[in-house]
């Protein structure tokens, strides 16, 4: 497979996943704040800041954040690199560049997704379309994943797309954890032990579509500890970091079976990180959540860079 096309497929996977997480985060955060149990987490400014911080756009003057601007920037502003519309555009452009490699069915779905986002009216979106638009974005992304799994050959092409999807998923999950962890530190009150039992943990789980399963697994209201354990270390939770790492490891071995045990190779780095997280405990993470988050993000960036070096620039 061409190195350029490999790069396209990898990033297509990343952008599809990114669009979905951004949409879901915006949706869940906004709607759950409407009836949140304490003053701060109910305040518009608080939730808008949280949304901006998740996409990595930290605004200096936080008193001037306007709801419509935040919605527009993150949803449909093609000038913002983090906007959903931009992610979808990039995803489709990458699909275009590798169109001969992917199935007609999958291409048709990504094309429909693109036209849906491109044609969504801006004024409706910022006034009343938030729920409809973001829900449809997550649905389209789910359809795409289904088409990827169901209509492509499970070979190197599939492995590269899955690498993109899972690296992005692990990254986004950690970013969401980071944002909500910071929110929880700020928004206290409402329960006996403010941080440990914060309402933000529920929101966090819902942002990752993992609330119901968390309740089923622990049979108790979510706490900081159970949420971190679930979203980072539970291999059966499809959104957990370790689940993504398992996927990443599985798919990198299709490209590189580690026969030569090259210590600097992407496959080796991935294997090492996966083994470490496989036997990590939530207590270790809780010692310093900030540091853990930063280290995880750094490692994921390193892996992505190594993949680029090894596979995309021959």
């Amino acid at each position, binding site marked *: 497979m061409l190195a350029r096309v490999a790069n396209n497929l990898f990033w297509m996977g990343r952008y599809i996943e990114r669009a979905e997480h951004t949409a879901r985060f915006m949706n869940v955060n906004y709607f759950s704040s409407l009836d949140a149990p304490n003053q701060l987490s109910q305040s518009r400014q608080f939730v808008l800041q949280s949304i901006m911080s998740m996409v990595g756009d930290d605004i200096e003057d936080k008193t001037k954040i306007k709801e419509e601007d935040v919605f527009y920037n993150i949803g449909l502003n093609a000038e913002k690199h983090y906007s959903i519309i931009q992610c979808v555009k990039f995803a489709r452009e990458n699909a*275009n*560049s590798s*169109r001969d490699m992917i199935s*007609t069915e999958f291409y048709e779905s990504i094309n429909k997704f693109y*036209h849906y986002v491109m044609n969504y009216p801006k004024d409706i979106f910022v006034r009343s379309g938030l729920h409809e638009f973001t829900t449809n974005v997550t649905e389209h992304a789910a359809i795409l994943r289904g088409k990827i799994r169901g209509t492509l050959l499970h070979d190197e092409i599939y492995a590269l797309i899955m690498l993109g999807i899972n690296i992005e998923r692990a990254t986004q999950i950690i970013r969401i954890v980071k944002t909500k962890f910071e929110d929880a530190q700020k928004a206290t009150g409402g329960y006996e032990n403010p941080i440990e039992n914060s309402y933000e943990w529920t929101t966090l789980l819902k942002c990752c579509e993992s609330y119901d399963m968390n309740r089923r697994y622990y049979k108790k209201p979510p706490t900081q500890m159970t949420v971190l354990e679930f979203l980072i270390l539970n291999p059966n939770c499809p959104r957990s970091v370790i689940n993504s790492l398992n996927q990443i490891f599985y798919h990198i071995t299709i490209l590189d079976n580690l026969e030569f045990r090259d210590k600097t190779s992407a496959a080796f780095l991935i294997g090492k990180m996966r083994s470490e997280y496989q036997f990590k405990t939530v207590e270790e993470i809780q010692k310093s959540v900030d540091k853990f988050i930063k280290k995880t993000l750094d490692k994921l960036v390193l892996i992505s860079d190594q993949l680029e070096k090894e596979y995309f620039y021959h």
Partner: protein
Amino acid sequence: MKLNDSNPIFSSYQNNTSLYDEIFDQDKNVRPTYKKIIELYSGHSINDFVSLNEKAKASFFNQGITFQVYSEEKAQEKIFPFDLFPRIIEAKEWNTIEKGVIQRSKALNEFLWDIYHEKSIIKDGIIPMDLISSSVNYLRQMIDLDPPGGVYNHISGTDLIKHSDGKYYVLEDNIRCPSGVSYVICNRNALKRALFGVFNHYEIHSVTNYAENLLDIMESVKPKGVDVPNCVVITPGIYNSAYYEHSYLAKTLGIELVEGRDLFVEKDFVYMKTISGPEKVDVIYRRIDDTFLDPLEFREDSAIGIPGLFAAYKRGNVSIVNAPGTGVADDKAIYTYMPEIIKYYLNEKPILNNVQTYHCSRKDDLKYVLENIGKLVVKPVDEAGGYGISIGNRLTKNEIESVKKVILENPRKYIAQPIMSLSVHATYIDESQSFEQRHVDLRTFTLLGAGKAFVLKGGLTRVALKKGNLIVNSSQGGGSKDTWVLKK
């Protein structure tokens, strides 16, 4: 069966009997081939067609079967309009077309070999030397170079029309990078989805075997010493107007779609950059114009070519499909000599008619053209896509004068032909929500390999959607029809 009795969908069909209508004869009777389909279509209301047409459009759009149009303010993604009424060609008629286009392709191939080698056709005084030497498409780099398998024009797109006398005439032989074949297959799929019922009543040839034959042809011209050749399609990139077709071909051929930047040349061999290192490339189906192929040999400013490709080609280490330099033979000035070319190389009579052509570089012809410009179509010899054409009876006096001036400035650049009346076909028109007469032509696709020839049994029927318009190119607002070749 007659036009207008008991078929509501044709109730407003204006049958201009001065034109050759493919469906109705002079007395408004349905031609035998179309009887069944007219009967079936009459069972539908016009509302059915309105909704089918909408669905077909949406389907093309969603599948991304689109092309870019640049002439307007910004690039726009457009679908190639597809018509719900198929064009039907009888088996006997098709046989003649098929033999005729193969004959032309073979003759052109011999001609190309000759003008890049011995030049005997010039020495024998059949074609004037300056016609070749003045052609910008004659590549000196190709002189005395033997393309693998001895084939230049592996892929030819021949444009035919049916004149008011009911006979086919060839308008053009496109042997550079003819496009449109992907639409042949898409049109068939779209019509099957929309009106599957009609297919049960006709026995028609499939059009899905193009890719396998093309791959066969490509492999037949592999470089010497290669067992299983590595074939690729090269595209200028995703912003090219025909990118859909490039990706479609690569996908159906099952080979890589590369861009110039994916390839490099080392020691006169061509390689592509893959995730596991360089991989040798043997046959390149290029969808890039000659002059952009290699910045070291042709245009220095080409950013889409591969430096060193031509040197590798010269060494015989890679095949290029179609060969560089074929453009000299699809020059409209050479077209004039097609009957002579066929006779000279194949010693055969031309099977398909050529349109009488006046060559502005010849004194007598130029005189005739200037005197009769109102009755002629004037075309530049080296433009494609319907650009630069003027149709005599559509011009004002002032325009006629300016066309004359343009011709006189560079007579070599122009030819003129009598205004041919393209046949018309019932075509669904969006604005009036009814079927109307529209002009159509036919592009066939011929493949030529080492000892092999193949014609796709179908071809692309292009239709000029604007009323009265004779230019069918997609860049000028043309659409297309599914084209059926009957088995019996």
